[in-house]
């Protein structure tokens, strides 16, 4: 209680590390965009594989998705950073190994989103397309995907928002993102209150507009 009374806030000192903050923000955004894009590509490929009528194809994809959905992301990041290079007996660049877990995690959820979008399309659409004489590729491209992508966008934006927050877990493998940069500035200034408040505010400023946008998208798809 005494601390609260005598504590003198000083954001000036903390914010004077402009250069570090900017770099941290850049790293956070780069890992967000990179792992989301990578996850999206994995999601489309695995989502399409799930439509193949062979258990030899779908079963491995199912296991991939379940493994990443049912283990903590923090464990995945650490495992891919420290354990995978041992398994593969190769040196992976740190930045790459650090992003692997995040990318595959996003990929697992993107796969589910993609599959969910496809199977949400009424089976009448498939049979009407087939009855017209469309091949599988034609009906996917012209009939199913145009409708399904519209439904995939809101859950995908939501997952991307979560993903951006999750990049803060890169802290544990010393990737200088916003969170890790914060810890460095703390050790320099001994101002954890101002620093971590600033970190939280930064995430909020990026994500709040995105959530508003996601809500609007959702409303538009629903109509």
């Amino acid at each position: 209680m005494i601390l609260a009374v005598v504590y003198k806030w000083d954001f000036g000192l903390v914010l004077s590390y402009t250069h570090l903050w900017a770099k941290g923000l850049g790293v956070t955004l780069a890992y967000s965009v990179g792992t989301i894009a990578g996850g999206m590509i994995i999601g489309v490929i695995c989502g399409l594989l799930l439509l193949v009528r062979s258990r030899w194809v779908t079963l491995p994809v199912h296991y991939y998705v379940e493994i990443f959905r049912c283990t903590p992301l923090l464990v995945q990041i650490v495992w891919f950073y420290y354990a995978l290079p041992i398994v593969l007996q190769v040196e992976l660049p740190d930045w790459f190994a650090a992003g692997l877990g995040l990318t595959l995690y996003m990929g697992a959820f993107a796969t589910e989103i993609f599959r969910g979008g496809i199977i949400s399309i009424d089976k009448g659409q498939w049979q009407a397309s087939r009855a017209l004489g469309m091949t599988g590729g034609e009906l996917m491209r012209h009939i199913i995907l145009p409708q399904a992508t519209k439904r995939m966008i809101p859950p995908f934006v939501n997952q991307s928002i979560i993903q951006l927050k999750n990049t803060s877990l890169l802290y544990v493998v010393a990737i200088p993102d916003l969170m890790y940069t914060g810890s460095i500035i703390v050790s320099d200034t001994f101002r954890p209150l101002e620093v971590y408040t600033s970190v939280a505010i930064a995430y909020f400023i990026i994500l709040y507009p995105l959530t508003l946008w996601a809500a609007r998208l959702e409303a538009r798809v629903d109509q």
Partner: protein
Amino acid sequence: MTSSSEVMVKVEGLRKSYGNVEAVRGVSLEVDRGQVVVVIGPSGCGKSTFLRCINLLEKPSAGTLQVGDRLVDFGATHSMPRGRDLARFRARIGMVFQQFDLFPHMTALQNVMSGPVIVKKMPKPEAETVARDLLAKVGLAAFTERFPRNLSGGQQQRVAIARAMAMAPEIMLFDEVTSALDPELVGEVLDVMKQLATDGTTMIVVTHEMAFARDVADQVLVMDAGQVVEQGRAEEVLLRPQNPRTASFLSRFHSTIGERKA
């Protein structure tokens, strides 16, 4: 039916099982060019399955199927077409469903153009001419730019008929296409179908509209439990059924069959 008439569809001993359930148990049918065949029978007797086998939306378990000059034998040889071959087989057969199944992201015009453009790779201006003509024919010239959600059920079903006709199919299949409609909208769809029949379209129609069957059908097929229990000229089957099961099924509709045209 003269012996010189051209056979468009010939089905022999067609069977279809789903696991232990045999939905179609040996159905044979011959349809000549320009003929209208009406298929009737109680719910669950296999009418839809039979129709869906004809354009291979379902893979028959046994029998032979000939559409135009293309023969498919489901015996030991299993010559079920696949991939592009299967798509081409279906492209020559039009089908209209109970739930319309229009493409919701396309206007009425785009729906009708979809087959020619996507399947036949017809140039868009040409496909548009075909589509506009067909929409005019089904009485929807003023609705070409509407999306399906802004059309009534009857209008949607007429677009669906135009969409199937746009492929210039050799035969049209109709599966209870008025069953999902409000009663006051049934007439407009049946009128379009009557017009197609008058124009010489070869059609197989599954329906519970007995007045339509009486007025339009050349041949009536009565199914029960996956089998044909009676088959013949419309007047004979509808007014003088020989099979007791046909008689009992038809008794439910007697007022409609007997009714005179106004």
